[in-house]
């Protein structure tokens, strides 16, 4: 129901006013992004690939574990577009299901890194003083550490405890209903999230701290403080939203980095367990059998590289569009 009470009029005016001016940071950025052909290409590939992967169980008739042992490994043909592996499993299905795992790890681990990094950087930057220098010194020192090594150690040495978690999940039941049945391997994936996320937050913390430092002295923060708002509210309600630009850009560049790290681990045999597979596991299998069955290496490798390629271009495009100078200090 439209009411024309006097109270509503000014706000309606304001809306048309804004429409006429028609610019906000995000709208500007969107225009710039759309003109960047490589970024549009990257974005399209990412969206199409993610959707196909996510919807794979509903739109694709074969599953990643359907075997046809009589078939064995066959080259790409009309029935199996990308061929099959040595157990007669359709490679396209395996790539799609592997893509689900890889993308999920990339997304969730990046979110873990995002939450840790943003909170850490925002607190260090806002509080300042001794706390800031201690916190950033810790980041500096951690930067110099060989983190891949620690992730490898974590994955190897926490494997057994995680299998215990899996077993527990399998037995877990509410009123006789097994909520997590058939979710074996979840513990390993959770471990992957935690291990990778714990590594990738450092740069995010530095970027956010730098941004916070630069807006800390602005009047509106002063105003918020003089109104008596508490520190957590000022940080997370008034400052963090204003550093979203760099945070989005850096997150979009973290996702491919995380996917790379996950495949690296899978390649060393430390990723998800069979029969599940990530793209990294597929590439590892393919590289072992490439002498006879080239398609087992070329297609998963191609899919993985194309995804990384697109994500990187999208991230670069976002950086240009939002006009972020990603400095490390």
């Amino acid at each position, binding site marked *: 129901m439209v009411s024309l009470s006097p109270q509503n009029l000014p706000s309606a005016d304001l809306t048309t006013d804004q429409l006429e001016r028609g610019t906000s940071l995000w709208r500007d950025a969107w225009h710039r992004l759309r003109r960047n052909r490589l970024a549009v290409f990257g974005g399209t590939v990412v969206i199409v690939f993610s959707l196909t992967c996510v919807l794979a169980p509903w739109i694709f008739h074969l599953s990643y574990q359907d075997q046809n042992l009589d078939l064995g490994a066959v080259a790409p043909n009309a029935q199996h577009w990308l061929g099959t592996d040595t157990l007669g499993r359709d490679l396209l299905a395996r790539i799609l299901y592997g893509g689900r795992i890889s993308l999920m790890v990339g997304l969730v681990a990046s979110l873990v890194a995002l939450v840790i990094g943003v909170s850490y950087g925002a607190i260090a930057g806002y509080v300042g003083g001794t706390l800031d220098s201690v916190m950033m010194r810790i980041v500096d*020192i951690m930067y110099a550490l060989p983190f891949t*090594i620690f992730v490898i150690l974590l994955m190897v040495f926490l494997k057994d405890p995680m299998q215990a978690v899996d077993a527990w999940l399998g037995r877990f039941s509410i009123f006789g209903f097994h909520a997590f049945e058939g979710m074996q391997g979840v513990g390993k994936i959770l471990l992957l999230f935690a291990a990778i996320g714990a590594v990738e937050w450092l740069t995010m913390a530095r970027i956010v701290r730098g941004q916070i430092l630069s807006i800390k002295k602005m009047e509106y923060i002063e105003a918020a403080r003089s109104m008596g708002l508490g520190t957590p509210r000022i940080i997370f309600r008034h400052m963090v939203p204003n550093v979203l630009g760099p945070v989005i850009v850096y997150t979009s560049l973290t996702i491919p980095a995380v996917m790379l790290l996950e495949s690296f681990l899978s390649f*060393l045999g430390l990723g998800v367990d069979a029969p599940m597979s990530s793209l990294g596991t597929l590439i590892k299998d393919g590289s072992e059998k490439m002498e006879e069955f080239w398609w087992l290496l070329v297609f998963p490798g191609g899919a993985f590289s194309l995804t990384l*390629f697109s994500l990187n271009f999208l991230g670069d495009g976002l950086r240009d569009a939002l006009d972020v100078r990603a400095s490390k200090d």
Partner: protein
Amino acid sequence: MLRFIARRLLETIPVLFIILTATFFMIRFVPGGPFTAEKAVTPEVMRNLERAYDLDKPLWQQYTRYLRNVVLHGDLGPSFKYPNRTVNEIIADKLPVSLELGAEALLIALVAGLTLGVLAAVKSNTWIDYICSSTAMIGICLPTFVLGPLLVLLFAIRLGWANASGWYGPVDRVLPCLTLGCVYAAYIARLTRGGMLEVLHQDYIRTARAKGAGQLRVIFKHALRGGLLPVVSFLGPAIAGILTGSFVIETIFQIPGLGREFVNSAFNRDYTLVLGTVILYAALIIALNLVVDVVQVWLNPKLKFE
């Protein structure tokens, strides 16, 4: 500068200490041990094994003893999986291979990356630039564990120009070093292009040109020093990446280096070997980062040793 280096070296000591302690307790608190994977042994044999390696003592005693040996004698202890070999011997044996692989890969990365990057910047927005830049992008998006097997498939298996694995003659060096160096060459090319483009537009370059300096002289004498700054700050992470990246390369090409040894030792629960390699890698990476920081200040007078 000496004070800066001395302070950084002093800071390294607590860091290494924390790494050693954290790793020691992390790998010990997890169930399973170096001998659980072996064929079932009688409890008596197990006890003897544990006594021989001091595993029967309380954990803190093992820790203090290990720490004392490492600090006072630089002795990283005996390996649990290789009978009669010490970790020091294994490292002395395998580290040179990994270092050679890393150094050659870094050389390839620098030569190829700088050439591509400088070319792309000087001829910016011409077809030369496009070729160089897209080559670099492909290099970034092809991870080593995709590129490596592909190169083996093409050059070793199909064409037969190189061996698929091994580490004997000079030919065996080509594919692994190329694979490892390629990714970093791509990053270096991108950074060089960006840095050089920025520098080439500055006033002092125009001044140099106005004074009649030739193109080559402008590039190498005036622009390169400033244009290389982003590359130098990237070298720290790059060196760490090349060192740990060799885990995959050594697995693909069956190279007897320390990276493969580290991954195997982690799988085998070879406690001392894991600890030894972790400390060594940490020390190496911290030291190389320090070198990079010093070079950075030397190249850029605006920075100061704080």
